[in-house]
């Protein structure tokens, strides 16, 4: 019962915040709502006994990604005229409405579907016995999913290099690529 209450409270908050993220005129406001949203989602994870995920949700999402957003918003110091809200034409409103109706249909379909009854054997009890959620996730992640995990590091490296390449300053006059490259590494977005 408590669980349901908590869920509904969080769900309401998440819905509200999500709408506000999209609907706020000012990106800063949006970002703040996004943070709240992410915290609520983390709460939802915790409520579902996914402690590890809840933790990185807070750490990475709320702690890193949104901060990054805020940082960029501040850095760009957007003028009011660039901070537009919705500006849509009539047919586009129609398409938006159709989209919303369509996805309400999707939601209804999901309820109609109902749980499949699949059981992978990792019941809460098993996890509890094994030493808790974080331990269990770790065990799986570092054995079964070691390969994607290692690749994820490459992915991050890739993202760094990509960001460097993307956000570099205009091409310097000097033909010496290596020096410029070094400079960009230090001056990049990260």
């Amino acid at each position, binding site marked *: 019962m408590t669980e349901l209450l908590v869920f509904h409270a969080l769900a309401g908050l998440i819905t509200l915040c999500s709408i506000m993220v999209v609907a706020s005129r000012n990106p800063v406001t949006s970002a703040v709502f996004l943070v709240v949203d992410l915290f609520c989602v983390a709460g939802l994870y915790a409520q579902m006994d996914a402690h590890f995920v809840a933790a990185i949700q807070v750490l990475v999402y709320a702690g890193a990604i949104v901060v990054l957003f805020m940082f960029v918003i501040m850095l760009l110091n957007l003028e009011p005229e660039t901070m537009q809200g919705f500006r849509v034409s009539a047919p586009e409103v129609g398409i938006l409405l159709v*989209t919303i109706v369509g996805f309400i249909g999707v939601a209804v379909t999901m309820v109609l579907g109902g749980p499949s009854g699949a059981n992978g054997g990792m019941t809460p009890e098993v996890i509890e016995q094994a030493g808790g959620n974080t331990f269990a996730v770790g065990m799986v992640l570092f054995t079964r999913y070691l390969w994607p995990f290692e690749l994820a590091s490459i992915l991050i490296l890739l993202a760094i290099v990509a960001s460097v390449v993307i956000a570099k300053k205009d091409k310097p006059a000097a033909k010496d690529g290596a020096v410029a490259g070094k400079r960009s590494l230090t001056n990049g977005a990260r």
Partner: protein
Amino acid sequence: MFWMIIFLPLLGALVNGLLVRNKVPKTLSHVIGAAALIGAFFCALAVYIPFMAGGGKQQIIIGMDWLRAGSFEAPFHFILDRLSGMMMLIVTGIGSLIHIYAGGYMHEEKETWRFFSYLNLFVFMMLLLVFGDNMLVMFIGWEGVGLCSYLLIGYWYESDANAAAGMKAFLVNRIGDIGFLIGIFLTYKYFGTVSFSELKDMVFGNGVTPVQLEAVSWITLALFIGACGKSAQLPLYVWLPDAMAGPTPVSALIHAATMVTAGIYMMTRLSFLYYLAPDTQVIVAAVGAATALFAATIALVQNDIKKVLAYSTVSQLGYMVLACGVGAFSGGVFHLFTHACFKALLFLGAGSVIVAMHHKQDMREMGGLKKYMPITHVVMLIGVLAIIGFPGLSGFFSKDEILWKAWIGGGPVIWLMGALAALCTAFYMVRLLMLTFYGPNRSDHHTREHLHETSVVMWGPLTILALLSVFVGYLNVPHVIPFPVHQLFDHYLAPVVEMPEIAKQNWTHLTATYPASLEFLLMGISVLGMFLSSAFAISLYGKGPSPLAKRMAERFSGIHELLENKYWIDEIYDAYIVKPLAEMSHFMWKVIDVMIIDGIVNGVGQACTLIGGLASFRMSGSIHRHAMVLVIGLLCMLTVLIF
């Protein structure tokens, strides 16, 4: 020897047409052309005499294998019998005379090699037509003579009218040829062969099945359409008057003596089928009689000397067809024979006149030529007397037989039409004679100065033809007239036009005996009519066109105009057939082809481009629009799969 008959003219044509062309003097062209024909004539004689000495039995001369497909066979086999033997003599004999004459007539032309080449080719084709043992070989000749006719009518191609006349001849003949073709198809379908001799054996041997009998009506009708085209019967006669645009020897040879009689020849060759189709025969007789009268009336008022002769030819051909229609094939062929002689004579005579008149053909500008051209006058007089049926000359015998058979075979109406046509014939032929040779000379001074008799090359053949015109009639003297031999020609042709046993019930009236008095009576009526109408013509035109003639023309201006304009048949054809066809064709091209079909084809392309342009304009651009398209696509898929 037989092969030489056929191939000498072809050789002549090839030598003149491909080898020598402009390279030799034109006299040599003439010599080559004429020599080929004269050679062929003597070969023909050399074949004919042994043939007749041997009893005149039908012979099949094996040529070569020509066309074989499926079960259809059409070899180059030739038939030599009394009919084709006679025709070959006419073609080569009269042909030789005309070739000789043509040398004089074409004296002033430049490209005589072309003329003689075509003329020789014509003779070759005509011989193929005559000798072919099956319909297909006959058809080669049939179309081949049409081709030569086309080329010769358009011989003076620099005049657009001549080229048009040639084309008209070819096309109208083609209409008939479709009939001929369909006749061939039907024959093959129901008899399985198109060979004359085999057909004949089949009909005389086993008889015909009811289905075949039914088909025979259609076959004969279809073939008759072909005959209508070639022999210039209603309604396809229109080309023949225009064909007079060709040189006069051509008119004489092709458009009077030989080619136009091909229809009659073909019907006679298939007489055993026509006997089997009394229904068709009624049509044939009616068409023949109608043509005879119709053309004769037109001829009454024509002023162009060749036009008069042309309509006269149509009219005479009508007689021949009429004869075939009433079952008197031998009568028809006999008239063909006599007509070939006197009509060739008349044409060549007219040609002489035309040459003398410096290629003027309007009779109103002639007159009194008797004085300048005595020989021509005499032979023309003989020719006219022959054609109007002056007793004792060839036309009298042949025409009278036809009229007699028309009475007993076709009934009084048909006879009356024939008799009326004979009256008209007498009138217009005498009118022609009067206007040309008698009365005062109406030509201009310049022409008159140069009027003179033609050379021997021209009048020589004329005299021979005149003699023939006088005497050939005695080959077929009717029973009622006291004469040593009667109906020689009928007996001669009897094996060819034999009547099948099963057909005899339909033609009992032909074999029945009639009182001699009746025949005399009819003969008397026609002779009397001939004299009256000749007298009338002399009275009107004896001294040039009299005021009475003019008054009559005014008095009956409606009819006169109708006749003068040839019943407006050409105009009617033009307005109701040619023009609509042209308009339809234009519609097909401009509307169906260009607008509808191409419109659809190009429209598809343009529509694609348009859709593409529109789509790329609406769908692309900013990110949110891309996202919208993407989401709509997603929703579409959801709709298809889930909802």
